[in-house]
Protein backbone atom coordinates (compact mmCIF):
# COMPACT_ATOMS: atom_id res chain seq x y z
CA UNK A 1 0.00 0.00 0.00
CA UNK A 2 1.44 3.37 -0.93
CA UNK A 3 1.79 6.17 1.57
CA UNK A 4 -0.81 8.13 -0.40
CA UNK A 5 -3.48 5.48 -0.12
CA UNK A 6 -2.75 5.03 3.55
CA UNK A 7 -3.15 8.74 4.34
CA UNK A 8 -6.30 9.01 2.25
CA UNK A 9 -8.13 6.77 4.71
CA UNK A 10 -7.38 9.01 7.69
CA UNK A 11 -10.35 10.89 9.11
CA UNK A 12 -10.56 14.49 7.88
CA UNK A 13 -12.86 15.67 10.65
CA UNK A 14 -14.30 14.67 13.99
CA UNK A 15 -17.88 15.03 15.12
CA UNK A 16 -17.99 15.74 18.82
CA UNK A 17 -21.04 15.68 21.07
CA UNK A 18 -20.16 18.22 23.76
CA UNK A 19 -20.05 16.80 27.28
CA UNK A 20 -22.16 19.61 28.72
CA UNK A 21 -25.85 19.65 27.87
CA UNK A 22 -27.92 22.72 28.71
CA UNK A 23 -31.12 20.83 27.91
CA UNK A 24 -31.07 19.85 31.58
CA UNK A 25 -32.18 23.46 32.23
CA UNK A 26 -35.23 23.29 29.94
CA UNK A 27 -38.60 21.95 31.01
CA UNK A 28 -41.52 21.02 28.84
CA UNK A 29 -44.76 22.46 30.19
CA UNK A 30 -48.24 22.46 28.68
CA UNK A 31 -48.93 25.24 26.18
CA UNK A 32 -47.68 26.65 22.90
CA UNK A 33 -45.15 29.29 21.92
CA UNK A 34 -42.59 31.09 24.03
CA UNK A 35 -42.58 31.60 27.78
CA UNK A 36 -44.65 34.79 27.69
CA UNK A 37 -44.38 35.39 31.43
CA UNK A 38 -40.57 35.52 31.24
CA UNK A 39 -40.72 37.76 28.18
CA UNK A 40 -43.15 40.14 29.85
CA UNK A 41 -40.97 40.39 32.94
CA UNK A 42 -37.96 41.21 30.76
CA UNK A 43 -39.90 43.80 28.75
CA UNK A 44 -41.12 45.45 31.93
CA UNK A 45 -37.58 45.54 33.30
CA UNK A 46 -36.42 47.17 30.07
CA UNK A 47 -39.27 49.69 30.25
CA UNK A 48 -38.14 50.62 33.74
CA UNK A 49 -34.82 51.71 32.19
CA UNK A 50 -36.47 53.97 29.62
CA UNK A 51 -36.16 57.03 31.83
CA UNK A 52 -32.37 56.81 31.28
CA UNK A 53 -32.46 56.49 27.51
CA UNK A 54 -32.41 60.23 26.69
CA UNK A 55 -29.32 60.78 28.84
CA UNK A 56 -27.66 57.62 27.50
CA UNK A 57 -28.28 58.75 23.93
CA UNK A 58 -26.75 62.13 24.69
CA UNK A 59 -23.77 60.37 26.23
CA UNK A 60 -23.28 58.21 23.12
CA UNK A 61 -23.47 61.23 20.80
CA UNK A 62 -21.04 63.16 23.00
CA UNK A 63 -18.66 60.20 22.81
CA UNK A 64 -18.92 60.23 19.01
CA UNK A 65 -18.13 63.96 18.86
CA UNK A 66 -15.23 63.55 21.31
CA UNK A 67 -13.70 60.71 19.29
CA UNK A 68 -14.06 62.75 16.10
CA UNK A 69 -12.30 65.69 17.72
CA UNK A 70 -9.53 63.38 18.91
CA UNK A 71 -8.75 62.43 15.31
CA UNK A 72 -5.93 64.77 14.38
CA UNK A 73 -5.46 64.68 10.64
CA UNK A 74 -3.57 63.42 8.82
CA UNK A 75 -3.57 60.23 10.86
CA UNK A 76 -0.81 57.69 10.43
CA UNK A 77 -2.80 54.47 10.28
CA UNK A 78 -6.22 52.93 9.94
CA UNK A 79 -5.99 51.84 13.60
CA UNK A 80 -6.26 55.47 14.67
CA UNK A 81 -9.88 55.37 13.48
CA UNK A 82 -10.81 52.45 15.75
CA UNK A 83 -12.19 54.44 18.73
CA UNK A 84 -14.19 56.68 16.40
CA UNK A 85 -15.48 53.66 14.47
CA UNK A 86 -16.54 51.94 17.70
CA UNK A 87 -18.41 55.08 18.82
CA UNK A 88 -20.27 55.18 15.47
CA UNK A 89 -20.90 51.46 15.67
CA UNK A 90 -22.31 51.75 19.21
CA UNK A 91 -24.76 54.39 18.00
CA UNK A 92 -25.72 52.28 15.02
CA UNK A 93 -26.67 49.43 17.32
CA UNK A 94 -28.20 51.30 20.22
CA UNK A 95 -29.90 54.45 18.96
CA UNK A 96 -33.07 52.55 18.04
CA UNK A 97 -33.24 50.95 21.49
CA UNK A 98 -32.92 54.44 22.99
CA UNK A 99 -35.81 55.65 20.82
CA UNK A 100 -33.81 57.38 18.06
CA UNK A 101 -33.92 55.06 15.03
CA UNK A 102 -33.12 57.89 12.60
CA UNK A 103 -29.85 58.59 14.39
CA UNK A 104 -29.16 54.85 14.24
CA UNK A 105 -29.68 54.81 10.48
CA UNK A 106 -27.34 57.76 9.99
CA UNK A 107 -24.69 56.03 12.10
CA UNK A 108 -25.26 52.86 10.08
CA UNK A 109 -24.56 54.79 6.87
CA UNK A 110 -21.42 56.24 8.45
CA UNK A 111 -20.16 52.79 9.47
CA UNK A 112 -20.87 51.38 6.02
CA UNK A 113 -18.91 54.27 4.54
CA UNK A 114 -15.94 53.65 6.81
CA UNK A 115 -16.11 49.92 6.07
CA UNK A 116 -15.97 50.59 2.33
CA UNK A 117 -13.24 53.23 2.04
CA UNK A 118 -9.56 52.68 2.36
CA UNK A 119 -8.36 54.10 5.67
CA UNK A 120 -6.68 56.39 6.48
CA UNK A 121 -6.20 58.11 3.11
CA UNK A 122 -9.41 57.37 1.25
CA UNK A 123 -11.81 58.91 3.71
CA UNK A 124 -13.53 62.26 3.30
CA UNK A 125 -13.76 63.84 6.75
CA UNK A 126 -16.17 66.35 5.30
CA UNK A 127 -18.58 63.52 4.60
CA UNK A 128 -17.94 62.02 8.04
CA UNK A 129 -18.70 65.39 9.63
CA UNK A 130 -21.93 65.65 7.66
CA UNK A 131 -23.08 62.48 9.43
CA UNK A 132 -22.03 63.74 12.84
CA UNK A 133 -23.78 67.07 12.31
CA UNK A 134 -26.91 65.23 11.21
CA UNK A 135 -26.87 63.00 14.31
CA UNK A 136 -26.33 66.00 16.61
CA UNK A 137 -29.18 67.81 14.87
CA UNK A 138 -31.71 64.96 15.10
CA UNK A 139 -30.96 64.63 18.81
CA UNK A 140 -31.22 68.39 19.39
CA UNK A 141 -34.51 68.58 17.48
CA UNK A 142 -35.72 65.35 19.06
CA UNK A 143 -36.40 63.74 15.68
CA UNK A 144 -37.09 60.14 16.49
CA UNK A 145 -38.10 58.28 13.35
CA UNK A 146 -38.29 58.74 9.62
CA UNK A 147 -41.93 59.89 9.68
CA UNK A 148 -40.34 63.35 9.83
CA UNK A 149 -39.98 64.54 6.17
CA UNK A 150 -36.70 66.36 6.83
CA UNK A 151 -35.25 63.26 8.47
CA UNK A 152 -36.37 61.17 5.50
CA UNK A 153 -34.76 63.58 3.03
CA UNK A 154 -31.56 63.68 5.09
CA UNK A 155 -31.31 59.91 5.24
CA UNK A 156 -31.87 59.61 1.51
CA UNK A 157 -29.23 62.27 0.71
CA UNK A 158 -26.61 60.70 2.94
CA UNK A 159 -27.40 57.21 1.69
CA UNK A 160 -27.15 58.19 -1.98
CA UNK A 161 -23.95 60.17 -1.41
CA UNK A 162 -22.41 57.22 0.42
CA UNK A 163 -23.28 54.84 -2.40
CA UNK A 164 -21.60 57.22 -4.86
CA UNK A 165 -18.49 57.76 -2.75
CA UNK A 166 -18.06 54.22 -1.57
CA UNK A 167 -20.36 51.45 -2.71
CA UNK A 168 -20.52 48.92 0.07
CA UNK A 169 -21.09 45.16 0.06
CA UNK A 170 -23.89 45.99 2.51
CA UNK A 171 -25.81 47.60 -0.38
CA UNK A 172 -26.33 44.24 -1.99
CA UNK A 173 -26.37 41.86 0.91
CA UNK A 174 -28.79 42.95 3.47
CA UNK A 175 -28.53 40.88 6.49
CA UNK A 176 -30.10 37.66 7.32
CA UNK A 177 -29.14 39.59 10.40
CA UNK A 178 -30.07 37.22 13.11
CA UNK A 179 -30.16 33.54 13.69
CA UNK A 180 -27.91 30.58 13.77
CA UNK A 181 -24.41 31.66 12.91
Amino acid at each position, binding site marked *: MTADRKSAKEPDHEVIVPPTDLRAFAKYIPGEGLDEAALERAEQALQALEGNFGAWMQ*HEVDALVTEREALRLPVASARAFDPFYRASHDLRGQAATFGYPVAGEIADNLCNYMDAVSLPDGISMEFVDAHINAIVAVLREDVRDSSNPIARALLWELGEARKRFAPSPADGDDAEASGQA
Partner: protein
Amino acid sequence: MIRIEFNKLRFLVIDDNAHMRRIVRTLLHGYGTREVYEAEDGASGLEAFTAYQPDIVITDWAMPIFDGIELASMIRQPGSNQNPYVPIIMLTGHSEKSRVIRARDSGVTEFLCKPISAKALYQRILSVVVNPRPFIKTKTYFGPDRRRGTSAHMGPERRKDGGGAAEITKIEPLYDKIKSGLRGS
Protein backbone atom coordinates in the same frame (compact mmCIF):
# COMPACT_ATOMS: atom_id res chain seq x y z
CA MET B 1 -43.96 25.08 25.54
CA ILE B 2 -40.42 25.05 26.85
CA ARG B 3 -39.53 26.91 30.01
CA ILE B 4 -35.88 27.63 30.61
CA GLU B 5 -34.67 27.55 34.18
CA PHE B 6 -32.83 30.83 33.92
CA ASN B 7 -32.18 30.87 37.66
CA LYS B 8 -29.79 27.94 37.16
CA LEU B 9 -27.88 29.40 34.22
CA ARG B 10 -24.77 31.54 34.48
CA PHE B 11 -24.17 34.20 31.83
CA LEU B 12 -21.14 36.25 30.85
CA VAL B 13 -21.86 39.48 28.96
CA ILE B 14 -18.91 41.09 27.16
CA ASP B 15 -19.40 44.51 25.64
CA ASP B 16 -17.29 47.65 25.80
CA ASN B 17 -20.42 49.79 26.02
CA ALA B 18 -21.72 50.11 29.58
CA HIS B 19 -25.25 51.02 28.43
CA MET B 20 -25.54 47.89 26.33
CA ARG B 21 -24.22 45.72 29.18
CA ARG B 22 -26.85 47.24 31.46
CA ILE B 23 -29.61 46.52 28.92
CA VAL B 24 -28.55 42.90 28.42
CA ARG B 25 -28.16 42.35 32.16
CA THR B 26 -31.62 43.86 32.74
CA LEU B 27 -33.18 41.51 30.19
CA LEU B 28 -31.41 38.48 31.64
CA HIS B 29 -32.52 39.34 35.17
CA GLY B 30 -36.01 39.88 33.77
CA TYR B 31 -36.04 36.34 32.39
CA GLY B 32 -35.09 35.12 35.85
CA THR B 33 -31.30 34.81 35.68
CA ARG B 34 -29.44 35.36 38.93
CA GLU B 35 -25.84 35.06 37.84
CA VAL B 36 -24.75 37.56 35.22
CA TYR B 37 -21.08 38.50 34.97
CA GLU B 38 -19.76 41.33 32.85
CA ALA B 39 -16.56 42.28 31.09
CA GLU B 40 -15.78 45.34 29.00
CA ASP B 41 -13.33 44.05 26.43
CA GLY B 42 -12.13 40.84 24.87
CA ALA B 43 -9.15 40.41 27.21
CA SER B 44 -11.10 40.83 30.44
CA GLY B 45 -13.85 38.76 28.85
CA LEU B 46 -11.48 35.84 28.42
CA GLU B 47 -10.29 36.24 31.98
CA ALA B 48 -13.89 36.31 33.27
CA PHE B 49 -14.70 33.27 31.13
CA THR B 50 -11.97 31.32 32.88
CA ALA B 51 -12.84 32.63 36.33
CA TYR B 52 -16.65 32.25 36.26
CA GLN B 53 -17.15 29.36 33.82
CA PRO B 54 -20.41 30.67 32.37
CA ASP B 55 -22.98 28.41 30.73
CA ILE B 56 -23.58 30.95 27.96
CA VAL B 57 -21.44 33.82 26.63
CA ILE B 58 -23.01 36.88 25.04
CA THR B 59 -20.44 39.06 23.29
CA ASP B 60 -20.22 42.18 21.20
CA TRP B 61 -18.11 42.18 18.03
CA ALA B 62 -16.33 45.56 18.01
CA MET B 63 -14.30 45.95 21.19
CA PRO B 64 -10.86 47.24 22.14
CA ILE B 65 -7.79 45.04 22.81
CA PHE B 66 -9.27 42.07 20.99
CA ASP B 67 -12.68 41.84 19.49
CA GLY B 68 -15.54 39.35 19.75
CA ILE B 69 -14.31 37.29 16.81
CA GLU B 70 -10.85 36.91 18.32
CA LEU B 71 -12.44 36.11 21.66
CA ALA B 72 -14.60 33.36 20.11
CA SER B 73 -11.53 31.89 18.40
CA MET B 74 -9.66 31.84 21.71
CA ILE B 75 -12.52 30.14 23.53
CA ARG B 76 -12.80 27.56 20.74
CA GLN B 77 -9.37 26.07 21.42
CA PRO B 78 -9.83 22.44 22.40
CA GLY B 79 -7.81 21.71 25.50
CA SER B 80 -6.98 25.33 26.30
CA ASN B 81 -9.84 25.96 28.72
CA GLN B 82 -12.48 24.07 30.66
CA ASN B 83 -15.36 24.55 28.25
CA PRO B 84 -14.47 25.21 24.61
CA TYR B 85 -18.03 24.09 23.78
CA VAL B 86 -19.75 26.97 25.57
CA PRO B 87 -22.54 28.53 23.46
CA ILE B 88 -21.48 31.96 22.20
CA ILE B 89 -24.16 34.45 21.15
CA MET B 90 -22.77 37.36 19.19
CA LEU B 91 -24.79 40.53 19.73
CA THR B 92 -23.69 43.15 17.26
CA GLY B 93 -24.58 46.16 15.15
CA HIS B 94 -23.07 44.40 12.13
CA SER B 95 -25.71 42.90 9.91
CA GLU B 96 -24.03 42.04 6.62
CA LYS B 97 -24.11 38.44 5.47
CA SER B 98 -20.33 38.44 5.13
CA ARG B 99 -20.06 39.31 8.83
CA VAL B 100 -22.47 36.53 9.81
CA ILE B 101 -20.29 34.07 7.89
CA ARG B 102 -17.13 35.38 9.54
CA ALA B 103 -18.72 35.04 12.97
CA ARG B 104 -19.85 31.50 12.14
CA ASP B 105 -16.36 30.57 10.98
CA SER B 106 -14.86 31.78 14.26
CA GLY B 107 -17.09 29.37 16.18
CA VAL B 108 -19.96 31.66 17.17
CA THR B 109 -23.14 29.68 17.90
CA GLU B 110 -25.82 32.32 17.34
CA PHE B 111 -25.81 35.76 15.77
CA LEU B 112 -28.12 38.52 16.98
CA CYS B 113 -28.29 41.86 15.27
CA LYS B 114 -28.94 45.04 17.25
CA PRO B 115 -31.25 46.72 18.10
CA ILE B 116 -31.88 44.18 20.80
CA SER B 117 -35.33 43.08 21.95
CA ALA B 118 -36.47 40.89 24.82
CA LYS B 119 -37.97 38.40 22.39
CA ALA B 120 -34.99 38.17 20.01
CA LEU B 121 -32.50 37.57 22.81
CA TYR B 122 -34.81 35.03 24.42
CA GLN B 123 -35.10 33.12 21.13
CA ARG B 124 -31.33 32.92 20.74
CA ILE B 125 -30.94 31.63 24.29
CA LEU B 126 -33.75 29.13 23.77
CA SER B 127 -32.03 27.91 20.63
CA VAL B 128 -28.66 27.27 22.28
CA VAL B 129 -30.28 25.58 25.28
CA VAL B 130 -32.77 23.37 23.47
CA ASN B 131 -31.06 22.71 20.14
CA PRO B 132 -27.38 22.15 20.82
CA ARG B 133 -25.39 21.30 17.73
CA PRO B 134 -22.56 18.79 17.62
CA PHE B 135 -19.08 20.21 17.30
CA ILE B 136 -16.87 19.71 14.30
CA LYS B 137 -13.12 19.56 14.51
CA THR B 138 -11.00 19.84 11.40
CA LYS B 139 -7.49 21.10 10.79
CA THR B 140 -8.81 24.63 10.37
CA TYR B 141 -12.05 24.74 12.37
CA PHE B 142 -13.34 23.86 15.79
CA GLY B 143 -16.88 24.89 16.63
CA PRO B 144 -20.56 24.11 16.29
CA ASP B 145 -21.63 22.30 13.13
CA ARG B 146 -22.02 25.11 10.61
CA ARG B 147 -24.79 23.38 8.74
CA ARG B 148 -28.27 24.37 9.83
CA GLY B 149 -30.71 21.88 11.24
CA THR B 150 -28.24 19.49 12.80
CA SER B 151 -28.84 18.31 16.31
CA ALA B 152 -26.48 17.05 18.95
CA HIS B 153 -28.65 14.08 19.80
CA MET B 154 -27.21 10.94 18.26
CA GLY B 155 -28.78 7.98 19.98
CA PRO B 156 -29.77 7.22 23.55
CA GLU B 157 -29.17 9.82 26.23
CA ARG B 158 -26.21 8.66 28.26
CA ARG B 159 -25.16 11.84 30.01
CA LYS B 160 -27.66 12.69 32.70
CA ASP B 161 -25.76 15.29 34.67
CA GLY B 162 -23.47 16.91 32.14
CA GLY B 163 -19.72 16.71 32.58
CA GLY B 164 -17.63 13.74 31.58
CA ALA B 165 -15.89 13.22 28.31
CA ALA B 166 -16.99 14.32 24.89
CA GLU B 167 -18.25 11.63 22.53
CA ILE B 168 -16.04 11.73 19.46
CA THR B 169 -16.68 10.17 16.07
CA LYS B 170 -13.90 10.29 13.52
CA ILE B 171 -15.13 10.74 9.97
CA GLU B 172 -13.05 9.89 6.93
CA PRO B 173 -13.20 12.26 3.96
CA LEU B 174 -16.35 11.93 1.87
CA TYR B 175 -14.26 11.70 -1.28
CA ASP B 176 -12.38 8.68 0.10
CA LYS B 177 -15.60 7.05 1.27
CA ILE B 178 -17.05 7.34 -2.22
CA LYS B 179 -13.80 6.11 -3.78
CA SER B 180 -13.60 3.04 -1.54
CA GLY B 181 -17.31 2.38 -2.17
CA LEU B 182 -16.65 2.36 -5.91
CA ARG B 183 -13.69 0.05 -5.48
CA GLY B 184 -15.85 -2.34 -3.47
CA SER B 185 -18.63 -2.46 -6.07
